[in-house]
Structure formats: C-alpha cells, structure tokens
C-alpha cells in the first residue's frame, strides 16, 4: 500500500511544483516591468546611466527628484484629471449608443442584423492613422480644436463599433424566452429589456466600460493631432511629448508617470476581472 501511495504523492508534489513554477514565471513576466518602472522612478540619473550598475536595484541612494520633476515641472496631475474626464465621457457615450444598437441588431433585424453587425465591426478596423487627417477637419468644423471635447467626440468612433458588435453577440446569447415570459407577465418591451436583459448583460457591459476607458487612456494619434495645449493633454500624449526632449529621454520621470498612470487601471481590472473575463467568454453560455 505504502509503495503505491508514495509514487502518487510524489506525482502530486511534482504537479504542484510545476504549477507553482509556471505561476511564478508568469508573475515575474507580468510584474517585472512594473517593478522595474517603480525602481527606475526612484533612481538618480547617474545610477541610470552607468552600465555596470544593476538595473533592477539601487546602486546609489534613492531619490525623489524624478517625482519632484513629474509633479512640479510638468502638468502631470492635470493630465491625469483630463484622462479621467475623457475616459468617463467616452464610456458614457459608448454605453448610450452601443447598448441600444447591439440590442436592436440582435433582436429586431434577423439575418440583416448579423450582416450589419459585421459591417459596423469593419468600421472599427479602419486605423486611426488613416482617419486622423479627415477627422482633423471635422474637429475644426465643430470648433473643438485643442479642447478635450475633440477627444470626447472622436473616441466613440472607435469604441462604439466594437462595443456594438460585442454587445450584439452578448444579447443574442440571452434566451428570447426570458423576455417573452416578461412580456407575457405584463412588462413593456423597454421594461423587459431594462429588468431582464440588461442585468444578464452586465459582464458584457463591464467589458465595454473597461475597453472604452483603457482605449481613451492610451490612444495617441487623435490626442496628438487634436490637442497641443499642454493643459489640455491627456497622459498618453502629455508624458511622451513633455518628458522627451529631442533625442534625450527623461527615463526617471517617464517611468514614474507611466507607473502611476497604470495603477488606477490595474485596480479597476482587479475588482472586475472575473466579470471582464466572462464578458469575453460567456457570450453564448447563458442558457
């Protein structure tokens, strides 16, 4: 008996070790860049430029100079606020347009709905690097040049098509029977949608929120061409344009500001990760 147990527990031990090893490698792979960013943000410049120094630890005493630069020599705090403002507005507009559009395509247009959904998704594939020149004219015509509103108006052109397509698939996966039962019970179409369909679509909606917010926070080309006033910049454009001087990169401030900007997004992901994953995977699983 003992002889039979020994290989089994050895196998379990091996499996667990392998499991932890893979997990450890994955954690190092994903967390190392952030750790490196954080360490670099506290290093002195002379420490950074010495190739004999260990890049992953302090070879000279840590300093707050890089952070002082970020918060006193640049408008970083303002850029964070701008980014949050644009992100929230874009999320709002995207939800307002994509939820009804996705639901309509899923429920009312039959086979045409699918074709239209694919058509809308194809719009998402047109790269902003091609669109920024005509879009610059639209922004000027609207009188929104050099304002955050130019981004609030243009980012939904990227987020709405993808979100509509995503939500369309999600709404399709919700059985019609549930809605029909609600209609029989006396709900209006809107009532059934709000009380029955929408709560079931929460993972999809969270996916749209995260997608729209992170896209707004990281988009570059539109932000670069529509906004040049330093006080109106978002993080994605303020950091590279104000912390790179010609061919000199201010690595300490760059790393510090990049790290700080990624913290809120990381927290957001942490709290809604399960629902976010199910938003991508559960479409079709609600039965």
């Amino acid at each position: 008996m003992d002889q039979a147990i020994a290989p089994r527990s050895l196998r379990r031990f091996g499996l667990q070790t392998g499991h932890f090893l893979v997990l450890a490698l994955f954690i190092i792979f994903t967390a190392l860049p952030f750790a490196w960013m954080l360490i670099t943000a506290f290093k002195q410049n002379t420490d950074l430029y010495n190739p004999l120094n260990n890049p992953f630890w302090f070879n000279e005493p840590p300093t707050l100079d890089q952070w002082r630069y970020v918060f006193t020599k640049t408008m970083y705090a303002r850029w964070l606020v701008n980014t949050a403002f644009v992100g929230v507005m874009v999320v709002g507009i995207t939800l307002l347009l994509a939820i009804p559009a996705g639901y309509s395509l899923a429920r009312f247009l039959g086979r045409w709905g699918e074709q239209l959904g694919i058509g809308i998704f194809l719009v998402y594939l047109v790269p902003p690097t091609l669109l920024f020149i005509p879009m610059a004219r639209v922004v000027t015509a609207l009188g929104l040049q050099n304002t955050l509103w130019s981004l609030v108006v243009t980012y939904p052109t990227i987020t709405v098509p993808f979100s509509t397509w995503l939500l369309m698939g999600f709404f399709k996966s919700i059985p019609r029977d549930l809605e029909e039962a609600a209609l029989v019970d006396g709900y209006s179409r809107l009532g059934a949608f709000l009380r029955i369909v929408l709560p079931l679509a929460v993972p999809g909606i969270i996916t749209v929120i995260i997608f729209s917010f992170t896209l707004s926070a990281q988009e570059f080309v539109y932000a670069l061409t529509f906004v040049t006033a330093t006080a109106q910049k978002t993080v994605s454009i303020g950091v590279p344009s104000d912390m790179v001087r010609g061919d000199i990169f201010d690595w300490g401030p760059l790393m510090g500001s990049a790290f700080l900007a990624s913290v809120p997004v990381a927290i957001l992901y942490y709290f809604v990760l399960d629902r976010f994953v199910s938003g991508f995977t559960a479409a079709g699983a609600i039965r």
Partner: protein
Amino acid sequence: MEGRKEEVHWVQVAEGKWRRITRREFLKIAGVGVAAASLGPFIFTEKTAAQPVRLRVLQWRHFVPPYDDWFDKVFAPRWGAKNGVQVVVEHVGVADLPAILAAEASRVARGADPGHDLIQLLSPPAAVEPLVDTDAHREVIEELVNKKVGPYIPLARMSTYNPVTKKYFGVSDNFVPDPIHYRADLWRRAAFRVTGPERVPSKGPITWEHIRLAGRELKKLGNPVGLGLSQEIDTNMFLRALMYSWGTSEQDEGSNVIIDVPPYRQRTIDALKFVKALYEEAMFPGVFAWTAASNNEEFLAGRISIAMNAISITRTAQALAAEALKRGEDPERSPAVQLARNTEITERAPAGPAGARGLEHVMGVYIIWKTGNRRVTEAAKKFLIDLILSYDPDVATKEGWGPGKFHASQAYDYPTFQNAIPKAKRLAYLTNDPVSKAAGDRPDKLATIETAYEWAYNVGWPGPSNAAIDEIFNTFIIPVMFARVAQGIDTPERALDSAAAEMRRIYKKWRDQGLVGGRR
C-alpha cells in the same frame, strides 16, 4: 376630478403688448434664457476688430530646458506686451511634428483654421509650399538681411528656398551642427594600438578611414563605434554626410537624380563598400535597431566610443557631471565628471576621398500658414524677426528679452543669419562656456563648433532640400540601401539600383506637381 388651477404670469411680447402665459411656459422661457445666457459667451465668440491679435506658436520641446523657460516665460510674453499681441506658445515632441503638420495642412487646404499661425519644424518642409505664406517668409528674410544681421547662410537658403517656384517655403532661424563625438581616453588607447603604415592621430579622428582603423581596436576594447544603420534621423544624417564626403549625392544642383549615374555611381558603390567594412570591423548588430536616442544613451552609458550627434551628448554628460559635483563627488574620481571630460567633439566633419562634408543635425525652420489673416501674418513676421534679433545678448538686454536666444539655448541653436549674434560674441560665450564650467569641464570645449559654417551642408546637397528630398529622407531610402549591403542581403550594385528606381518615382511625382526641378 377638478384640474389644478395653473399659476399665470404676464410677459411683454412687444412694445405695449402683453400676453398671459402659464407657469409651465414661464419656466420653459426662463430655462432657455438662463441656458442661453450661460452658454452664449462660449458659443457666439465673434471676433471684433478691437480684439488684440492672437498669435499661436507651436514648436518642439527644446533639448535645452532653460530655452523653453526663456521662450515661454520671458521672450514671448514680453514681446506680446510690447506689441499688443497675445502670444500663445505650445510645445510637442520633435517626433510628433510631422503628424501635426499633416493635420494642420489639411485644414489650411480646406480654408479652415489650422490651429496655429507659426510652427517651428526641424527639417525643411518643402511639400507644404502651396499652403504657406511664401511672401511673408521672403519679407522676413529681406528685412533681417537689411538689418545687417545676414548673410542668410547658404545652408539655410538651400533648406528653405525653392528655385523652381522661386519661393521661400520657410524661414530658418537656426541650425544645429552635427559633429562626431568620441571618447578621448578610449581613442588614445585605440590609436596607440593601430600600427604599421596606417596610423591614426591620437587627438581624435580627422577622416572616415581613421574611424574605421581605430574603430577596429575600439571594438576589441569592448567599446565599438555606434553609428546607426536603421530607419531614423541620425542614420539619415550620418550616411548622407558620408556619401557627400565620397563625392556622391542623391541629386545634382539642378535636382537631377545622380546617385547611380557615372561617375557618381562608382562613388556610391565605394561608399556602400566602406560602410559595410566599417560595420563588420568596428560596429555591432545593435546599429540596425538604432533609434534617435540610441547614440546618446549608448555613449552616456559608456558602451560605445564614437557617435555622430548634436552637442546634446556633451551637454547631457555635463549635466550628469554637474549633478555629481553638487552631491560633493571628487571630480578626479567621479565617473560622471570623468565621462564629461573625456567626451570630445571633432573640429570638423570627418573627411572622405572627396572632402570633409557634414550636415546639420536639425534645421530649425518656421512656417507661417497662408490663412489670409493679415493682422496675424504681420504679427507672425514681427515675432520671427525679433526672435532672430534676440540672438544678440546686447539686443536682448536692451529690449528686455532676457539673455537672448543664443545664450538661452546654451549655443545649441546656431544662427542661420550669421551676424544675428556676431562671431566675437559667439566665441566669447563658447570659450568661456558656463555650462562646461559648472560640470568641471574645459570651458572652451565646444568652441570648435563654430567651424560648422564651413562644413555643414543641407540634406540634398548640392541641390536644394526640395519635396522629393524630403520624401526620400522620411521614407529612409538611403538607410535601407546601406543597411541591406552591410547585412549582406544585397550587393552594392543591386541595392543602389533598387534605391535609385524608388527615388526616380518620387522625383517624378513632385515634378508633376511643379515643385521640383530637373529632368532625369
């Protein structure tokens, strides 16, 4: 059920005429009125003649931080107050300028507001000539020459004047010399190791051949030569400087493609072979992944021994040394101070078989958009003229413009109107350079950049920096040609033929638009 009695109000609808309205109507009218009153000023912003002129300036975030401080906080506001102009200055990264230029050009083409009135670019923007105010540019240049701060040096004229249309598509306010930087301590060791009939001077390279010979030893010492062979600005400059020193070029004076035409063909092939040898003997594979920041970072990290760049390498080394001295490090033992002291620049561009020809590292060129707004254009012209006059520290002091452009840029911006700051004043600064002194470095270290007037040529030399040259530059045809040969992917002949065919296609496109001369 009895309906609720509605409260009524009386409103005047015309003189002597009153009407009774319900409470609901009253609230609607009041609401609309309040909204209109609050939003009106933001929606209806009609400009009147009494409003001050607003001049919107866009320029790169300067390599020297105190320059931006001076420009934004001293020159622009004081100039604006004196001239009754509201000056708004915005900065972007140098790499971001082309995208913004493209977006603003599309607005000007449509007759819309471009977003800025005056833009400083760092390379000659020949392609936007139809959209800029060429008359205004010419008037600025003529006025500055009349004020006796000229001559407008040939490098600047070749970078801003189109001989086909006889128009100035920009006004250059400065150029930045592009010398070779080398580590003096390592160079001496390498020079000592080069033996036989081929010798190299211990005081630094004079020719490209010196760089190859010493580079061989430098690579053995673990500090190879770092000259890019990738698709980025420094590679573009290095390879053109080398080609021009070999007596070949993309075009001739008349904008005919000559790179593959005898006798230039053989010279180009010789240059290609030299770079292949230079790479194999003295460089390392990292040069194929070079970026605009690589030469600075690799040099300052002590990995490479030779780079070609603006004086930003020296200045950054000095900034690190000054930091170390502030911390109380012993200058004789501080690695940062020693690096600064051992960072030297060559007196001239390295020579090839046909001469010692280098380039500008960047070419500061301002453009004024053609918007038809005379008041703004006049303000832009005056601003530009006074900015260039502010090079002279005495003029700047007299006008209340602080230290002036030359001192504020720490000699990074070199004047294209050669007497905007007279030579004696340039040398007075460079031989007693306060930045070098603060770093514990030789105070006259950078004095030799003055010679750049003799060896710095424009991109496209001996022809003008036209729209075809600009496109060839931005599509990296020359770096690709050299890199393919250096990597052994193509023979020199095949790489040259392929590049020349591509260049002719580009020339044809711009000739068809009437912006580029030549026939071949």
